[in-house]
């Protein structure tokens, strides 16, 4: 500076619109202008000779005092900006507002410098303007980016993250400090797609947005995002801002769809298998149906064949024909024929032609009765245990068939225990809930268990099949379980078999509980005793053998028999002869026995008529017609006749 008036210099210092403090080499105030007085409230007299730290004890002055020292010792000039030192000194503007100032420190005097000068410039207005501008920008930015649902990241030209919005922090699980300065590649499993797009965007080209990226969150999970980004400039500096939209939901949906497609084949296969299973079951039942029909036919023929056998043998027995040995033979033959008859009955029951006479049955009584019989049939090596619950309600069943079933199961059990074992028969009452094979309700569970050889899974699967038997040729017919299965199904129950190889088998019959009380099973009465009778019987049957044997039976009983081989023939006899009783076979060529019976009834309303039928056709008969099922023995024939009176 050059001056003509030294004193003027002093006035100038006080006229300056800027603060001026000059410190000596010890950091004490040597000059304090008016501006400083006004702004700090500290008068020059108070300030002179004191260090700044004394004048402003609460201010953080280390940088300023160091700068002053550096100025004096080294001639260094320093800048203390309001940006980094907001309110370095407690100063106020003329309106009393807090002053924001920039501070400059320079060496004063000749080198080495004796003093340091501190110049304080009020930048409050500019700072305020900047602040307002920044706030407005930030507000606008926040309104969009700050509250955006999508993660938004800003990168500098080197790819370092310079800003991350709250969504980004939340979505990726990192705090801002963990993201800033880092590169997004650090969080990507595969950085290649991003690197590719980055090259394009930074060259201000147009990459193929969006780019799908997999971001590894802080917790290690993957988040899929679609990224789009664009370049922007601040002065000459390039930045890239990118939006990373969450596509996890979309991907999940796509994955589901893919999975669905992939499993479609699988599901189709499963469905087809299901269908096949159903078809198979249908086929099985059809097969059963067919077999049933077949056996029905066979049974009928059998019955027809058996009738003269039984009839003839019966006569022989009654007449006491032959010597002792001969009679024994006849007995044996009759027993065998009996068994054959029983067998046919069972066969027909299986074929479901046998009408099931379901009624309320006291299962306990049947079990107790049967198990008394078991002792003999099963042999000494088998121990029989009976476990019947008390107060059991009656079951809906056919008592005869139930007995047969029990016997059958017992025999199976015995055969499974060649070296002996334990046979347990248990009866319980159980409730079945919804969603099961059985309809919901109360059931009687009748179980027969043995400690025998058991069945493996393959055998178990076939156990209920007709004609399936593990017993070898000649032993058993293989019809038992399938017939019992049919029986229980017909009654509205089911059959369950459980078996473990080497441990034993349990067969359970589930029968619905009957409403009403059990009908006392009456012992079969053999009505008629000798069955003697008198009178003329018109016997109609187109099968000669049967007719002959039946006629023989009748004449043995004391009847006079007129034989007719057809309904037509019979009618002519009706017209021409005295007839006291008509016995006719039902199934005949031409007019059936039932039709004949009506004809006869029409002509002779009071005529007693007995219809003989095989098991097969009994359902066809009108229920009001008295009937007799073949094959029959003389006693049964007599009983049948007796019921006509």
């Amino acid at each position, binding site marked *: 500076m050059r001056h003509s008036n030294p004193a003027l210099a002093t006035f100038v210092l006080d006229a300056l619109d800027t603060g001026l403090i000059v410190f000596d080499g010890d950091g004490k105030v040597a000059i304090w202008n008016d501006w400083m007085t006004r702004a700090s409230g500290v008068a020059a007299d108070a300030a002179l000779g004191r260090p700044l730290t004394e004048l402003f004890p609460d201010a953080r002055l280390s940088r300023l005092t160091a700068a002053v020292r550096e100025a004096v010792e080294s001639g260094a*000039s320093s800048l203390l900006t309001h940006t980094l030192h907001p309110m370095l000194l407690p100063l106020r503007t003329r309106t009393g507002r807090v002053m924001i100032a920039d501070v400059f420190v320079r060496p004063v005097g000749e080198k080495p410098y004796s003093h340091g000068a501190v110049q304080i410039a009020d930048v409050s207005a500019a700072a305020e303007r900047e602040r307002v501008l920044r706030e407005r920008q930030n507000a606008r930015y926040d309104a969009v980016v700050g509250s955006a649902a999508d993660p938004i990241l800003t990168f500098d030209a080197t790819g370092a993250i310079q800003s991350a919005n709250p969504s980004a922090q939340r979505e990726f699980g990192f705090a801002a400090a963990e993201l800033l300065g880092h590169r997004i590649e650090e969080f990507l499993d595969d950085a290649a797609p991003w690197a590719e797009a980055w090259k394009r965007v930074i060259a201000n080209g147009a990459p193929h947005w969006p780019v799908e990226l997999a971001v590894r969150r802080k917790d290690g999970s993957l988040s899929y995002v679609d990224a789009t980004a664009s370049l922007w400039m601040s002065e000459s500096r390039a930045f890239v801002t990118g939006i990373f939209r969450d596509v996890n939901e979309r991907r999940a949906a796509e994955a589901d769809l893919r999975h669905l497609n992939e499993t479609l084949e699988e599901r189709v296969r499963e469905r087809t298998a299901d269908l096949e299973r159903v078809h198979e079951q249908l086929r099985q039942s059809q097969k059963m149906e067919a077999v049933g029909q077949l056996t029905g036919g066979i049974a009928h023929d059998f019955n027809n064949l058996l009738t003269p056998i039984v009839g003839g043998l019966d006569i022989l027995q009654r007449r006491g024909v032959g010597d002792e040995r001969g009679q024994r033979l006849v007995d044996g033959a009759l027993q065998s024929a009996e068994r054959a008859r029983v067998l046919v009955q069972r066969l027909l029951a299986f074929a479901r032609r046998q009408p099931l006479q379901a009624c309320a049955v006291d299962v306990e009584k049947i079990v107790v009765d049967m198990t008394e019989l078991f002792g003999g049939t099963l042999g000494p090596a088998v121990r029989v245990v009976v476990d019947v619950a008390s107060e059991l309600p009656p079951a809906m069943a056919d008592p005869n068939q139930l007995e047969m079933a029990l016997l059958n199961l017992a025999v199976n059990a015995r055969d499974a225990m060649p070296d002996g074992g334990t046979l347990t028969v248990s009866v319980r009452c159980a409730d079945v809930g919804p969603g099961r094979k059985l309809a919901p309700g109360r059931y009687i569970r009748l179980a027969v268990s043995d400690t025998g050889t058991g069945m493996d899974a393959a055998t178990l699967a076939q156990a209920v099949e007709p004609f399936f038997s593990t017993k070898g040729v000649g032993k058993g017919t293989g019809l038992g379980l399938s017939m019992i299965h049919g029986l229980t199904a017909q009654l509205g129950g089911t059959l369950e078999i459980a078996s473990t190889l080497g441990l034993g088998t349990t067969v359970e019959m589930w029968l619905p509980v009957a409403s009403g009380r059990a009908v006392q099973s009456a012992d079969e009465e053999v009505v008629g005793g000798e069955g003697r009778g008198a009178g003329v019987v018109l016997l109609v049957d187109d099968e000669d053998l049967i007719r002959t044997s039946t006629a023989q039976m009748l004449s043995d009983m004391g009847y006079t028999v007129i034989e007719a081989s057809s309904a037509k023939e019979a009618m002519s006899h009706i017209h021409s002869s005295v007839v006291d009783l008509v016995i006719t076979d039902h199934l005949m060529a031409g007019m059936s026995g039932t039709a004949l019976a009506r004809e006869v009834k029409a002509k002779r309303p009071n005529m007693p008529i007995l219809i003989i039928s095989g098991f097969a056709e009994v359902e066809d008969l009108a229920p009001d017609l008295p009937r007799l099922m073949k094959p029959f023995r003389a006693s049964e024939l007599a009983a049948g006749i007796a019921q006509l009176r």
Partner: protein
Amino acid sequence: MISLPATVLDELELDALTELVNIGVSRAAASLREMVGRQVLLSVPTVKLVSRSQAVELLGQSETNRLVAVHQVFEGDITGRAMLIFPEVNSLELVRAVTGGELPLEDIIELEQEALAETGNIILNGCLATIANMLKRSLKISLPEILRGEGPEFFELAPPPEAGDVVLFLYINFSVSERDIRGYIAMLMDMPSLEALKVLLREFIERTTGHSTTATDAPL
């Protein structure tokens, strides 16, 4: 055209200079720490003596992007320009570190100018003042000014003072809040200044090591 300066500093002189600069920037680091509130580490691993064109080349090799520099002039027995140079991208990092890291990007861009100026001021003063002190000389060091450009223009600034032909080229490493920022310091001076510096360094070496340098160290 690469031309080596006629007067060179020998190994020990360069070593001494490096040591002085390191002390200087370390002090600056301590100073910065006050402002930043976190540990600040500054170091100058290497010092090279190169020509202006070499300096431009050195910058161009590592930095292909734009640069920002804090510029101060020093006058005295040694006269020249001192510049703290950063790649423009790194300067934001620096500003973020220095302002505490909580500010949004926009604010940082706004404040960059001032924050960089002051930070550069502290570092350059640290260097230069220490050199001056240890060499027992006084310099007059100006207030900082911000420059932006590609590199070459930094070394083509119009006088005064005279744009020297010699550049003391230093790499400087910044470490703040686990952020490593690298930059450069370039001190441009003319030949007379370099010669004066050499003399001062010799004196300094003798003072501190008790060695008469002519006896023990041969120039490169």
